[in-house]
């Protein structure tokens, strides 16, 4: 009990056929982020600063779906969103529809601290970014060749789903569309880009914070907002805990998943792991999602009901783990 704890994630819903070298890359990035967070926490950086720092790192690295390396809209552009919440006093900030801001999570923090509002989006958010002097780049910066390829596959997958020339029941044998029948958010798992990166932290003072950032759903409609910037859905932090979610946005929003974990702790008195398990098991119905969480007592927990979630966790007493599968 007590001491700091940290968890990071790079998205839930992982292609079981993901090549080993990609799995290794992901684990290395998660490890690097954990180590960054661990140093920061050992130097007594407050939780809110740590979550921002780690998510910035995840946004900058093109591996996961946030910042550079974000999934693409149906138009082939990037629209990013993020939110951050500080447990003491439950201050929060969120942004959506960013196209040029290098680190969305930092803009979300500025919304929280430098604006009279909690949530800014699209051109208003971009204007605010310029007023605040944050680093901005061309939209092309965020686009990776890999995601351009994925977008093409996603469009094809959608086309196949509606291609009536393929008789029912033959989908798995016709062509190379799906090697695995797993789907998330309507896309075969092979083209589904696990949405979101996130970080939750409790520092030595017992303060919790949470931050989540994403490029959103591959091939999404322009203007589509998911769960990541929605306080209570993708991100939540209060006196008791900090939570960051990932997976099918609709399911997470309907479940107000991040808030749910805190609510069952507060109103039902469940412990952190119990609360996480309860929410994953009972609140998602058919939806697929995962989450990471920390409690003010220095505990860390995670849960997911899909086939994998890129994650890592560490606590002050030396525990450290990075994983992808169950």
């Amino acid at each position, binding site marked *: 009990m007590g001491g700091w704890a940290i968890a990071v994630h790079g998205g839930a819903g992982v292609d079981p056929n993901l090549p080993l070298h990609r799995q290794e890359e992901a684990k290395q990035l998660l490890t690097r982020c954990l180590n960054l967070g661990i140093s920061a926490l050992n130097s007594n950086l407050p939780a809110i600063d740590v979550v921002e720092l780690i998510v910035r790192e995840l946004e900058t690295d093109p591996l996961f779906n946030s910042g550079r390396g974000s999934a693409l809209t149906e138009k082939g552009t990037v629209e990013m969103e993020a939110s951050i919440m500080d447990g003491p006093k*439950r*201050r*929060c900030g*969120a942004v*959506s*529809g960013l196209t040029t801001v290098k680190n969305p999570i930092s803009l979300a923090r500025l919304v929280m601290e430098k*604006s*009279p*509002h*909690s*949530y*800014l*989006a*699209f*051109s*208003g*958010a*971009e*204007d*605010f970014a310029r007023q605040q002097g944050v680093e901005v780049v061309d939209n092309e910066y965020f686009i990776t060749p890999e995601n351009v390829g994925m977008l093409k596959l996603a469009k094809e997958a959608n086309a196949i789903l509606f291609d009536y020339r393929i008789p029912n029941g033959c989908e798995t044998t016709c062509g190379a569309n799906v090697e695995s029948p797993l789907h998330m*958010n*309507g896309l075969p798992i092979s083209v589904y880009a696990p949405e979101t990166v996130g970080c939750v932290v409790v520092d030595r003072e017992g303060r919790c914070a949470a931050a989540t950032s994403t490029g959103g*759903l591959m091939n*999404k*409609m*322009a*203007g*589509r*907002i*998911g769960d990541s910037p*929605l*306080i*209570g*859905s993708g991100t*939540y932090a209060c006196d008791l805990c900090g939570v960051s979610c990932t997976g099918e*946005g*609709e399911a997470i*929003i*309907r479940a*107000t998943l991040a*808030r*749910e974990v805190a*609510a*069952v702790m507060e*109103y*039902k008195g469940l412990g952190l792991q119990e609360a996480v398990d309860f929410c994953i098991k009972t609140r998602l119905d058919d939806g697929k999602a995962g989450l990471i969480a920390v409690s003010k007592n220095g505990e860390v927990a995670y849960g997911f009901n899909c086939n994998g979630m890129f994650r890592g966790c560490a606590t002050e007493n030396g525990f450290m783990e990075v994983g992808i599968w169950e």
Partner: protein
Amino acid sequence: MGWAIAVHGGAGDISRSLPHDRRQPREEALRHCLQIGVEALESNLPPLDVVELVVRELENIPHFNAGRGSVLTSEGTVEMEASIMDGNTMRCGAVSGLTTVVNAVSLARLVMEKTPHIYLAFDGAEQFAREQGVEIVDSSHFITPENVERLKLAKEANRVQIDYNAQPIQNDTKKEKPCANGDSQIGTVGCVAVDSHGNLASATSTGGLVNKMSGRIGDTPVIGAGTYANELCAVSATGKGESIIRGTVARDVAALMEFKGLSLKEAADCVVHERTPKGTVGLIAVSAAGEVVMSFNTTGMFRGFATEDGYSEVAIWSDAQVE
């Protein structure tokens, strides 16, 4: 146990000396919208349709801060947002940043029913509106002279605050000009309904905060903050968006009922009076059992409700002053 419906036209610092000509049209409008909802429930229209219908009506009435009559951004434009949720299925839809769509709540419903997404905003939402063929107009349609005046006063109040750094001066200004006082705080319209089978739905719509930064999103389109419905209850909140978001107000009412076994009234009162700062929030809610609550910690909330046993009421302050 029968059907029940509640509507609101915004909670805020509504001065008790609100002049009759600013009071009466709103009370009339609430009665009118309530009646529409009642007739719809009596003809067995599902609650999801009822709340959409009633909120459309509220959006069309210029006296409230939604649709026509929306407050203005700092740039003098309107940016409207709304959300809707079906308690049975827990499906939901939301929109933000609308500038030409006559009925934001209906577009939110179309997002829910016609897209794989829950929430569309700004240009993307406007484009979707055109694809769906919903009614759109020039955005000047939504702007009323009252709101142009409100924006002017809000900007002056900000300037006073900056120039003199003196709260008392600002407060005096508020007293002299009832339309700047609290009126500028009034956000949102909403409706919650339950039928005699316990089906629940909620919808909320708004122009947002007067003099808001362009791009500012409030609680109204955030599921769990301004709007929520499940099998236990349906809730629509109004007030200071930032507080409602941080307090996950609408969701918390349902959570307290579910996890702590509180009644609808106990849950609503707990959220409003114990869990959010005074002067920031109001909400209406109905339960699957046909109960209604309307709770607020602001000076007043424009509201009304009706139940199948024939009871109905329209009110503004806490000691229901209805003429």
